[in-house]
């Protein structure tokens, strides 16, 4: 199969064969093409070239949703359960009237729902609103719904990301049971040890290409990680700065920081130092970054920039203390789509563009034009609305906004998410440059390329810092620590 989105190739002539009755793992780093493959396998998207067959029969037409649902179902990371409706109604959504063209008979609907739930051993009251369900129960209801359509091929997209240990074990138990009764699974996970535990075959995608398919038993963790990371060719992100002076002053000191997502984190960054924090989605790394920049309140612990204490949960305070940041999601917290490039980039510094709250348009344009030139933003000018820019250039605008206040500390969360290689190089070049000029930088990402300019990389796992790597780490050891395979080994180095 091949699939292109505009000029990006999401899948480049890949193939996958899932044998009847097996649990097949699909792994790959971000952008490897996993989600595109899932959307094609579930009939939500059409491949530009190639075909899908189920048990030898060609896939149904794209419009025939019911036919697809009888073949394959996917339990997504994001819930497709409607919280305001009852479990029973969710199970039979859009087919509530069990006999066609009749009124909905609520009582028989609930009875039928209990039967379905009972037959798959799901212990949930069908009359309860779905909002009451735990993540685990919600997944079980989704699986039961999929099976009740007659599908015997289930795709689980990172089902364990939000579950705790015992719940994961119960899920695996259930998967084994269903597998024994003839259900086939495609299992997507970032946690490699889970694949060794539950799957028989593994397929690795990298950069939209198929890398390998192999029985799990014949593969070591190392070779799996190597297959996922490749040799990191193509991108040259340097570390051109001289090594850090011993007397460089401490810019950021975080001590005992604690919230729901992370526990007792201590961290110091010195002027000119670049520190990376890696970890999976559930590691708490993003929340830690948000706490440092004032987007999130903490329950205890302190953040100091130089000598100044930063008040928890106040962005204006963080700005004043000298923190600039790129938030995780540029669409959510990074950009105001209706405003121009110049205005977006200068939002935090409007007080410096004129007296008494006035904004001098000439001054704003001058500042914005300098930023556009500095970061190489491709735009028709400061007044072009950012909604018209490409992803890479939008991200550069967010970076410009972060740098606008000449911060002493720059916090970057997933700074190169969804941008092309060229923009990636230039964004990471900026990190190297500002650090050379004495800015302290905190890079929060699980993208290895983002972490290459770092002087050291900390790894977080389930809310705690579990490992620290000085410069010179290998992709394999870092990925292993992120996935929690050998976190302890990393900590020893």
């Amino acid at each position, binding site marked *: 199969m091949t699939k292109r989105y505009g000029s990006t190739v999401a899948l480049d002539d890949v193939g996958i064969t899932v044998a009847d009755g097996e649990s097949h793992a699909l792994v790959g780093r971000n952008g490897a093409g996993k989600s595109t493959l899932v959307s094609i396998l579930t009939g939500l998207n059409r491949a530009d070239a190639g075909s899908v067959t189920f048990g030898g029969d060609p896939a149904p037409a794209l419009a025939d949703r019911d036919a697809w649902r009888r073949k394959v179902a996917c339990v997504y990371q994001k819930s497709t359960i409607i919280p305001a409706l009852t479990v029973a109604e969710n199970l039979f959504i859009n087919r509530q009237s069990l006999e066609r063209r009749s009124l909905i008979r609520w009582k028989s609907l609930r009875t039928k729902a209990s039967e379905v739930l009972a037959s798959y051993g799901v212990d949930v009251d069908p009359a309860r609103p779905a909002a009451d369900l735990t993540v685990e129960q919600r997944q079980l209801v989704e699986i039961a719904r999929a099976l009740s359509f007659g599908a015997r091929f289930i795709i689980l997209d990172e089902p364990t990301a939000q579950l705790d240990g015992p719940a994961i074990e119960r899920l695996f138990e259930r998967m084994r049971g269903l597998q024994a009764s003839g259900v086939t699974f495609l299992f997507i996970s970032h946690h490699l040890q889970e694949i060794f535990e539950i799957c028989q075959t593994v397929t690795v995608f990298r950069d939209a290409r198929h890398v390998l398919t192999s029985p799990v038993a014949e593969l070591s963790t190392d070779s799996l990680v190597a297959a996922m990371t490749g040799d990191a060719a193509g991108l040259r992100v340097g570390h051109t700065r001289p090594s850090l002076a011993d007397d460089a002053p401490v810019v950021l000191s975080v001590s005992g920081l604690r919230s729901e997502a992370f526990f007792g984190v201590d961290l110091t960054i010195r002027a000119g130092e670049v520190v990376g924090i890696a970890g999976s989605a559930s590691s708490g790394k993003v929340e830690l970054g948000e706490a440092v920049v004032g987007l999130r309140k903490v329950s205890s612990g302190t953040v100091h920039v130089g000598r100044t204490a930063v008040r928890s949960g106040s962005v*204006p305070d963080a700005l004043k203390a000298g923190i600039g940041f790129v938030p995780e999601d540029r669409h959510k917290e*990074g950009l105001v789509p*209706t405003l121009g490039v110049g205005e977006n980039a200068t939002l935090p510094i409007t007080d410096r563009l004129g007296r008494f709250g*006035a904004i001098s348009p000439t001054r704003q344009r001058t500042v914005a034009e300098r930023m556009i030139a500095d970061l190489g933003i491709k735009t028709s000018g400061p007044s*072009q609305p950012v909604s018209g820019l490409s992803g890479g250039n939008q991200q550069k605008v967010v970076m410009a906004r972060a740098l606008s206040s000449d911060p002493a500390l720059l916090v970057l969360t997933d700074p190169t998410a969804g941008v092309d290689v060229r923009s990636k190089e230039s964004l990471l070049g900026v990190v190297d440059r500002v650090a050379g000029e004495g800015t302290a930088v905190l890079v929060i990402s699980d993208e290895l390329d983002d972490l290459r300019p770092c002087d050291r990389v900390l790894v977080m796992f389930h809310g705690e810092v579990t490992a620290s790597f000085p410069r010179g780490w290998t992709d394999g050891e870092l990925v292993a620590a992120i996935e929690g395979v050998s976190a302890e080994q990393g900590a020893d180095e």
Partner: protein
Amino acid sequence: MTKTLRFARFRDLALLPAIVVLMIVGALVDPVFLSADNLTNVLQQRTELSLLVLGQALVLISGKIDLSLESTIGLAPALALGLIIPASAHGLGIELPEWTAIPLCLLIGVVIGAFNGFLILKLQLSAFIVTLGMLTVLRGLQIGFTEGQNLFEVPLSFTYLGSARWFGLPASVLICLVAFVLGIVALAYFRQGRSIYAIGGNVEAARAAGIRTERVLWTVLIIASLLAALAGLLMTGRLGSVGPAQGQGMIFTVFAAAVIGGVSLDGGKGTLFGALTGVLALGLIENILTLGGVSPHWIQAIYGAIILIALMLARLTSGKAQD
């Protein structure tokens, strides 16, 4: 750059040709239309509406909505008067000194806006339903304490602004003009004004950029109510009394003028100049219908239909769905 800039300007000026066409049509319908007296009249009758539109446009650009403005325009002057006139004239019998009437009227506007802000921002209730409730409550308060009566005993100082003429023009028209100029300048050239656009465009991003979003929104809601109270003051001066239905039914026209003038109900988009042209266009249409001798029984239906047509035209020229 020039392309998008020109386009933005064009959006802003989109209604000017329509206004020119309306002027020509008006002149053809009745020569009286172009007389200074008639045009001044149109302007003066529209001052209260335009102040409401100014307030509403600010609220809409910030991404919120305030329906209660049409009741504030009645309650603020009525309650202020109630506090100074004797009980025999349907007052509350407190009989505060006469000079307090105008400050009280404006203060009542501020209090209503602050209370709206408390419900919307602190208790995080939906702005639509909160202000819809306030619309009913405020109107009910006015009818309640006036017992549904007109307040006729209005001191001269209270009617002055709404009836005086400065430099040959009604004072209210000049006040309105000043308010719009201040608003246009603030929204274009001041950081507080620009932060309203940022909040309306993406409140999360505005907060992440260090804007104190709650404070700005609260201020916007208070300003809108204050403008409604000012409009109430001017309307009372123009009419010489406060009726129990003062302002009732205006909110539809307020929204129509704002949307025709290019203000988005989604927030983050539109200009006060555009909103002003929306008010003028609707004012001219109504005036032409009256001069054209359309039966008073049909004028409402035709006026409403024209507003709907104007919304459709605005939708076609802006090219984007209005929601």
